């Protein structure tokens, strides 16, 4: 039993799947773990924070990201109402400016609710999601992205009535900005 627990603890630290039986046997170590300044399951307190791997989006292909975020809902071509400003070639993938403007009345019954920025080739494709309100009066936002490599960058707009619109541009990246 002791060896099984050690192996399960090591497996937990490596982030691998652990059998339910192994987890239950680890829970028996709770008292010792608490005394050692660790949390439930013997994982250091910091590992349960909001920036830990479990709290991040998963590493996945962009098709999986789109399925997860939009569940297969129809996406219309938004290139007539969405203006994307992003360079064709980014010398430094760590800082790629993007600006997205959407033509919209921004009235209480007809406004841009969300603008998603998604970079297909990033390990975790969603860069950010903006949530807008009619009080803005206009829909125009911007930020700087990290791009890992040459990729399509999509702006996906969700309107207040649930309609999804998309525009995208390819950005060639000379030096990737996502490190490892």
């Amino acid at each position, binding site marked *: 039993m002791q060896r099984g627990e050690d192996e399960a603890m090591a497996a937990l*630290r490596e*982030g691998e799947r652990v059998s339910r039986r192994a987890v239950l046997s680890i829970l028996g170590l709770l008292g010792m773990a608490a005394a050692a300044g660790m949390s439930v399951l013997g994982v250091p307190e*910091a*590992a*349960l*924070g*909001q*920036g*830990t*791997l*479990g*709290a*991040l*989006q998963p*590493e996945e292909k962009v098709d999986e990201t789109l399925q997860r975020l939009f569940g297969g809902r129809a996406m219309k071509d938004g290139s007539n109402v969405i203006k994307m400003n992003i360079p064709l070639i980014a010398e430094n993938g*760590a*800082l*790629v400016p993007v*600006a997205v*403007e959407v033509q919209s009345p921004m009235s209480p019954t007809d406004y841009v609710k969300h603008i998603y920025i998604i*970079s297909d080739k*990033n*390990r*975790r494709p*969603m*860069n*950010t*999601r*903006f*949530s*807008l*309100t009619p*009080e*803005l*009066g*206009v*829909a*125009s*936002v*911007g*930020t*700087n*992205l*990290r*791009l890992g490599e040459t990729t399509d960058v999509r702006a996906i707009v969700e309107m207040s009535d649930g309609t999804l619109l998309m525009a995208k541009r390819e950005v060639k990246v000379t030096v990737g*900005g*996502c*490190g*490892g």
Partner: protein
Amino acid sequence: MAQVGKVTIRVPPDIKRGDVVRIRSLVIHPMEIVQRQDGKPVDKNYLFIHQVIATYNGREILRSDTTQSISENPSFSLAFRPTEPGTFKITFLDTHGGKYEGSAEIKF
């Protein structure tokens, strides 16, 4: 090196009622990226800004859920057509409980 959490806001001067204003803000922050060891991601509590909230006279006007694929010292800009004078405030929240704020007055 500027201090982590320092917020800068730029609002243009001479705003007239009805104008669309471009507001730019920046916060000094490392926006830590995932480290890899032997091809696998290292599990730790990465320090990055994960939420940005902009308010006007206390009402939320824009929010951004952000990730590590936003640049270090992140910059955000928005266009806004204020219908009354007031206080624009932006709050940046990070994964370690950090909260950094800045505000600017808009007068007509």
